[in-house]
């Protein structure tokens, strides 16, 4: 799989249209997901994803095929998304069906009942973060990137990743304070033996 991916990436850099389409189609859900959580607007997310792939295509010749493509694409999406969103407010609310869908993965009814409200509150709190802070949270928890991968994606030192995540978590903790307290003693509570 790795070798065939590498061959595809090498072919794409040389201009092989079929290879480009295969790679871009494979990466589209991840890039769109990042854009959706960053912009919180399905239409803006599609525009942003389109802009990302267009920019990637324009700079494809300078892409190093020995490196994975997803972090490179996320880096482009991050730069484009953060610049576009800086100073803007969210365009939709949590009532939007797309956002509801992304906040409600398939779980048991019991889990859904317990966690649904919390997820909605987290999504609402995320909307209050700056694009830079929201981006690192999405990269970490939605894209599940490591700190090193996030550093590559946002083109910043790992210390910046750490500080942005810390600041984002601090702000989220403040926004979600009442929720966390309500859950104390519940399923998420920390027992002495379970720190």
């Amino acid at each position, binding site marked *: 799989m790795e070798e065939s991916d590498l061959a595809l990436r090498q072919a794409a850099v040389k201009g092989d249209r079929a290879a480009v389409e295969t790679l*871009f189609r494979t990466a589209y859900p991840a890039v769109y997901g990042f854009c959706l959580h960053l912009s919180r607007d399905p239409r803006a997310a599609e525009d942003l994803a389109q802009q990302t792939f267009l920019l990637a295509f*324009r700079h494809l*010749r300078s892409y190093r095929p020995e490196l994975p493509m997803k972090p490179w694409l996320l880096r482009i999406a991050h730069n484009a998304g953060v610049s576009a969103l800086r100073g803007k407010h969210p365009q939709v609310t949590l009532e939007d069906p797309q956002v509801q869908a992304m906040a409600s993965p398939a779980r048991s009814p019991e889990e859904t009942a317990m966690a649904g409200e919390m*997820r909605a509150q987290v999504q609402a709190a995320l909307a209050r973060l700056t694009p830079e802070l929201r981006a690192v949270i999405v990269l970490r928890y939605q894209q599940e990137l490591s700190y090193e991968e996030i550093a590559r994606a946002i083109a910043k030192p790992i210390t910046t990743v750490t*500080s942005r995540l*810390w600041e984002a978590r601090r702000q989220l*903790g403040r926004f979600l304070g009442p929720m966390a307290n309500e859950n104390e003693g519940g399923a998420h509570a920390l027992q002495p033996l379970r720190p």
Partner: protein
Amino acid sequence: MRCNRSALDAERLATGLMEQHRATEYQQHLMSCEECQAAAVQSRTLEDALRQAFGPVVVPAGAANRMLATLPPNPPALSFLRRHYRGLSTLAVAAVVAAVVTAFNPAAVSALATTVRQAISFIPGIGIRATDDAFVLAQPVTVSGNGVTLRVISVFADRNGTTLTYEAVTPSGQEPVGPQPYLVDDHGRRYFAQYSAGVSTHGTMLVFKPLAKRPGSMTLVAEVVSARVPLPLVRAGGAGLASAQPGGADATVLGITLRVDQVFRSSDAVTAHVSAYGSRGMNIAYLVIAGNDGLQPFPRPIYPASSPPQFDITLPADSSVLRVERVVIEEAGNGTAHIAIPAGTDSFSLGQQVQIGRYTFFLDRAEVMHRGGETSLRIFVHSGPARDGARLLSWRLTDFRSGAAFKLATDGSYEWFEVPTGAASQLSLTFVSPTVGIDGPWVVSLGSAP
């Protein structure tokens, strides 16, 4: 009463950034500190909430096709400069080298050497850091208030971040209880420490994100002494850096070499920058030094990451040697154990031997613990014989990463560990990452004391 443990510890534990040995110690602390338990609950709850906040994304139908339809037929070709970037860079470097060689004379060589020395310099309490466009503390600053004396030992500030080392003590020599100091820039923006990068016998090191505008102008706000402390900073490369002396002495025990690279002496402390070598030295997790208060661990700094491992060790001012009692290494390996829990008894013997990598340890006996409606098993252990001078101290449990508790014996090895069992009658345990201690001592000269 406020606990003097940083709330950042709770964050580090929840986000998995805390080193294993510190996590073990912190978990012990949590068992007796309600304040830290509350902070840990908050951090853990947030971590859990964030992990559950994102589900599968519904991609609009046809979106990928619409995107592909907008792409031009072929990607544009690279410009001449981009195409030949590597070749041109090599030519440029060669031209500079040629110019230096052509202009070869003793003065030019001396100037070049000075530039190199200033580019790779030693910051007391921080170690070797590039000093391009950086600021350091002109002299230590001491402030007293509320019966506490706070001393800022060193600062290193550049575009990548700010590192500050300080100590705060009460007249009785105890660490005071209070919030961590923070920085304020010219515009009144506050900067809280991202994390403590390590604690030595003479100071706590805090790492901050870079100051937005002027890294050379900052004030430390220390609520523990109720003071705002302007920090006198000078550009790196000044007298403070020149005071660092080259080291060079080393000691080798069981294939691990510890070398003192540089030594910085001030009126009340000596700081040694130490590198570790040898194949086993590459995996050192921390060094153990004999101090006035017993054995002091010096963890391998997480910032800056370095290879070979480098440590900055601060000792009393009259020290003429560095004496490392033990190095602690994390090795590869894993092992398993299966335990049948007999019904109707709260204590039973095990007598099992577990092989983990090259090492063995023994599960001696177990006690069933009932606490707060939860049942857990406390298993008493002891380590097997040393291998190549290394003795097994600890390991990690893969299945109970956040649900296990450990008790350390005085020699640093595990005395017992405790895992939740619920109503289970069988328990399977997987142990990984054996952490071993190699006892020295490594005794390395620091040069003559003043």
